[in-house]
């Protein structure tokens, strides 16, 4: 048998094999409880903390989705590939709010982030993006607690980890990203006497349009308008940003 055919077969089963166990019921359920004895009470509930384990089939799915264009791009043997990194910063504004109008409520922030892209000499580019986003902050005064009256300051932040697909033509690009956001709230209340934090992973996506101006050499600068959506929590952000891009290497 042809060796490539053999590898092919093994690979196919491998792929099925890695997908199947993840699809089992209760795979990510708490320690010490077998899926079956957990099943009757809560059907197949899982602990939110193990979100990633529970959802990593999505990543595999995504990898499969990416593999299509990747594979086609790989067919073009004579083209160049570039690995680029981009740092960006800007201003953000949270679009939805139930606290709008409250004097101590702020829904703007200064996001900073990093994007790493693999750029074939082609239309489609893929990569990964992460950032720090401050969504909003709010201070409530004169809260009656059992410890006494206090003020409490809350803020909401997110760190996205997104797979980016980008189409580029004449230095303009349109990108979409799909992935997860670590959304967390921090509280600071004088009487409770500690900064306290709580968060979770949520699915979400990103849309962006931008223009990049290349200098001679590896550097270029750009401007982007991004729309972040933390879909699972229904939080939406719009953010104009400027970026500095550096082509790490080309082969």
């Amino acid at each position, binding site marked *: 048998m042809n060796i490539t055919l053999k590898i092919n077969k093994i690979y196919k089963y491998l792929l099925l094999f890695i997908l199947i166990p993840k699809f089992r019921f209760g795979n990510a359920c708490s320690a010490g409880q077998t899926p079956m004895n957990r099943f009757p009470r809560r059907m197949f509930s899982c602990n*939110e903390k193990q979100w990633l384990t529970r959802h990593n089939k999505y990543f595999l799915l995504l990898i499969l989705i*990416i593999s299509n264009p990747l594979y086609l791009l790989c067919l073009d043997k004579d083209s160049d590939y570039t690995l680029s990194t981009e740092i960006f910063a800007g201003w953000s504004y949270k679009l939805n709010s139930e606290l709008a109008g409250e004097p101590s409520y702020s829904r703007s922030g200064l996001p900073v982030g990093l994007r790493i892209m693999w750029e074939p000499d082609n239309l489609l580019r893929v990569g990964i993006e992460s950032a720090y986003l401050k969504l909003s902050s709010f201070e409530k005064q004169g809260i009656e607690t059992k410890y006494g009256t206090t003020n409490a300051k809350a803020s*909401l932040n997110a760190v996205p980890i997104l797979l980016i697909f980008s189409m580029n033509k004449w230095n303009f690009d349109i990108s979409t*990203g799909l992935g997860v956001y670590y959304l967390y709230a921090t509280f600071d209340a004088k009487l409770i006497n500690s900064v306290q934090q709580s968060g979770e992973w949520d699915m979400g996506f990103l849309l962006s349009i931008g223009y990049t101006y290349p200098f001679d050499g590896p550097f270029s600068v750009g401007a982007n308008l991004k729309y972040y959506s933390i879909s699972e929590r229904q939080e939406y952000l719009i953010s104009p940003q400027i970026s500095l891009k550096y082509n790490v290497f080309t082969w």
Partner: protein
Amino acid sequence: MSNLNILFLSLIVLSSILFSSIILSSCKGDYSVNITGFADSQLKNTTSLNGFIKKKISGLYKVRTGKKMFGDTVVVKWSGTTMSVFARRNEAYMVLKGGSLDSSLVFEGYWRFAQSDRSGNIRLHIAYMEGAKELLQELPPGKVILSGFANEDGTSRSSISLEYIKPLKVNDGFYIVAHRGGGRNSDLLPYSENSLEIIQYAEILGANAIEIDIRLTKDKEPILYHDDNFNTRLIKGEYMVGPVENYYLYQVKNFCTLKKGEIIPTLSEALEVVIKKTNIKFVWLDIKSVEAARISIPVMNNYMKMANQRGRDLVILVGMPTREIFDFIVSGSEYETALKLCELSIDDVRKSNSKVWAPRWTLGYLTNQVEAMQSEGRKTVVWTLDEPGFIRKFINESKFDGILTNYPTLVAYEYYIKDQ
């Protein structure tokens, strides 16, 4: 590989991502029911109805017109100042307020199909010659006919006419247990699940008992909340992210509200409302952790005492849904006096001396075991039964003493119509 194809593929990939995103965000696009009421309400100039009238109006009614919406018979039942009408067809029900004019009685409110988002306004009268004459003079009426119309979206009008057949049978101790204090958020009720407001609405929906979910905050306060995490299904409040036990009570009270704007109640607040503002006879605390059981049982016992002092016909029971909670409660001698509800086997019910056995409805009638429990003086309640066909079957064929449901209107209808 042509450039065109790559372009095509890229578009496919981009659009599939967009699609996935739309799917993800479509979770929020849920249904809602808006009850507007009549702009030209006739209730404004009426005087409120007395107990005699309410009693005489309660009963089984034959549907003369409006069969397409409400079926052949309906159950009319009063709770406080509200008249509820329960039907089988379309899982329909009505919630009405009433008043008397000089020579007639008028009722206005809304109708709903419990399992869909269809709803509208409804106005009914009892005309002078159709019962109002006697009712206004506090004489037993020869006949009572409720007639009027129901509309949908304020436009289409269908006539409704209901004719009194006989009074309602007396409830012989059957528990119609409303899930999560009255019903789930997904059933589009006017109040949020596990709120003080829905607890006070439960009787209007036909329940005489409630089940509520108990969790602890970081400072060990028992609150009414179902899910493990704060999420958009249950609350509004952007700073509430992640597990409930990460948050202090002051944060729960000040930084979020339930979906319809209510404040998340503590267990004490809920039991206070049950005792003082309702006639609910049975409260089932669905405890979510061992720690929550430890903290909630003393609170529950205090309110049990308060209810007894006030002469309230009420039992408050701590649920034992898991082996873990069961073992904890059974091992602690200080929990011996607490009233218990056991979801495990009948042997566990005996071992813990639980007052109520609550098996899942998906096990069927379990007639032998139910009879065994009843012969020992225990009650049996089945959960969480929502399928209309099975509600009818369980009420008519099984021996259970109660049904936990998201649709108490349906259970109430089937219960009051049984053997009539």
